[in-house]
């Protein structure tokens, strides 16, 4: 045992240096040089200001924007740091609801969200929280139900909003890899570009 102490200590140090310092730092430099946009978080800017990341969902509540899925993320309560308060799409504290399918809290939450969700059947993603709480996407069915509201709030013909939605709907590659989805931030940014006719 004593005989192996020296190689154990030295090898742990050297391998940590290699795999924990040299390679990660080299990788950071390389990634930044080859794929600078992705390496720094796919940040999107508007008029020189960062408005978010193309990959991270953000909360929209105004009628003139498409709304994302509900989010279960939280932040520490400013009044009492040992407790948390719900803050949807808190991109510095990811997480899901972790509610069981038999949890009364889940059923109650969905019931209250359904009250404002329009006629049944409601697409499931409109009333369920995602695993990360930062899901950037909604389903095309969920988005389609919001077209009339968004068009009315912006005084735009529904056809224009529908057209934008269709242009921002991503379909599965080759028909089976991935899911049909709509990136809410991208769609809403495109909406803001449209001037009323």
């Amino acid at each position, binding site marked *: *045992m004593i005989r192996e102490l020296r190689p154990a200590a030295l090898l742990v140090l050297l391998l940590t240096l290699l795999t924990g310092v040299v390679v990660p730092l080299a990788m950071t430099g390389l990634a930044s040089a080859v794929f600078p946009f992705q390496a720094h978080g796919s940040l999107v800017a508007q008029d020189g200001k960062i408005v978010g990341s193309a990959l991270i969902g953000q909360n929209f509540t105004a009628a003139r924007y498409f709304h994302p899925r509900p989010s279960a993320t939280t932040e520490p309560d400013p009044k009492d740091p040992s407790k948390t308060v719900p803050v949807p799409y808190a991109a510095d504290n990811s997480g899901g609801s972790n509610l069981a399918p038999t949890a009364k809290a889940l059923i109650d939450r969905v019931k209250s969200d359904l009250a404002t969700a329009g006629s049944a059947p409601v697409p499931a993603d409109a009333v369920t929280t995602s695993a990360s709480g930062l899901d950037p996407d909604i389903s095309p069915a969920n988005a389609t139900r919001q077209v009339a509201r968004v068009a009315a709030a912006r005084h735009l013909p529904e056809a224009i909003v529908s057209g934008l939605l269709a242009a921002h709907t991503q379909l599965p590659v080759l028909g089976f890899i991935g899911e049909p989805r709509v990136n809410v931030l991208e769609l809403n940014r495109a909406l803001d570009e449209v001037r009323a006719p």
Partner: protein
Amino acid sequence: MTISGWAEIALTLALILLAAWPVGLHIARVVEGERTFLQPLLAPLERGLYAAVGVDPGRGMGWQSYAAALLLLNALHFLMLYAMLRLQRFLPFNPDHLAGMSPRLAFNTAMSFVTNTNWQAYSGETTLSPGSQMWGLTSHMFISAGTGIAAAVAVSRAFARGGMETLGNFWADLTRIVLYVLLPIAIVAGLALVALGVPQTLATHADATTLEGARQTISMGPVALMEAIKELGTNGGGYFNANSAHPFENPNAWSSLLETLLVFLIPIGLTFTFGRIVGDQRQGYALLAVIGIFVVTAIAVVYAAEAHANPLLTALGVDPAQGNLEGKEIRFGIPLSVLFNVITTATSCGAVNAMLDSFMPLGGMVPMLLIQLGEIVPGGVGSGLYGLLVFALLAVFVAGLMVGRTPEYLGKKIEAKEIKLAMLAVLILPFSILGGTAWSLVLPQATASLGNAGPHGLSEMLYAYSSATGNNGSAFAGLSADTSWLDTTLGIAMLLGRYAFLVPVLALAGSLAAKVKVPASGGTFPTHGPLFVGLLVGVIVILGGLQFMPVLSLGPLAEHFVLFAGKTY
């Protein structure tokens, strides 16, 4: 279930097989010190490491020395990580000035990473600096994976020839695996992940002003390399709290497919490595067939469970077409969520791209059962292979009892000593999983951590001890795991699950290595045909699975029936 969903799953499994074959053979060449295409580039580094450390890679080690070297290196690495986590405040690359971890959380986290478990009682983005994530966690991901593979290689060698006194050199095995297998694949896969959208930066966050004028702080960091080795080494510890469900760890369907492939690459590849080391590829194919039967069955059951919407929500007027979507991401949908979570629990990876706590009762039961089987189909990198070999010995022992012959596996006679050591290892699973769960369920300070009530609460606790003992690391994450009881006992469960299993297995390998290799005769039970595959599947189900049936009936099975009867908690 949809045809396109199954097509996605079938495509991924086919790609895994295609990729695992050359990787498995590459590992066999690397650990035997043969020339590979990476040698011109990395051989000087390898020689430099041996010289600096002062070891002779050709010196063989008996099983005691091999085990001692392995345990010593792991113990020192554990202490190093514990110190780093406690002293985080004073270490570089900590721009947000995050404080050190509490002693109990640092113990739990260091144990979690040295044992290849990667249980996360902490939340990555709020607790750890980029520095801690890199030299603390990422380095452990490489070295704990290398440790597991080295041990599996040592055990495989025991079957290769007769009359051996040594199992190889641990220092050389570990160094070669890290240099020639883990690093190159992780670097290439890490770059591919960056291309797909995973960040790799020393910045900790970006401040955004949303379109509605709110402030959003977006956490990031050196994620891509950690993500690659986290999957490749079946580690599973995410940079972020939400693990591979976080869009920065797993931005789209392509990244999910790539990560799924990386998780299975080495555990599946090692069946080919084993075949080559023992000089009979059919032996590896038989193990692969056993793994395939469990994995495909598990995917089918979980897919069927999750494609079915929660009946309580359907009754309220929610469209059932999208399946059980609570705790899942739109970009993965049901098929990729099911595939990812089955693959990461069939191995001891434990990464998640959907929240298992919100899976349907049967959808959550199968991942739990895959862990309880002992993380052997195919299990973690290395640990899965030596675990499966233990069950293979028990299977030939059962077959031997049936016909009254001394059992043999690959020409090595299996006698009382070997079976005792095999059972000693296997009994750790029920001891730690059932014992830990039962003890916790009667302690108020433990049940206070439960995030859900009713039978699901029992499932949460059972899952925690299964995951820790199986060195998996995934969770029914509603459980608030950072308490002194859970941090301590789950840390001990990880320790037992890793080393109380590994040491008897290395002793077993040492005993087998010394035996003569008996040539096959007409009376030898062939261990490469369908009969052996069926027998091994049966032994795993009966020995590994059946002991957990009673508790699974009280947890997920009971929840399944009350759910469809419309009861909530």
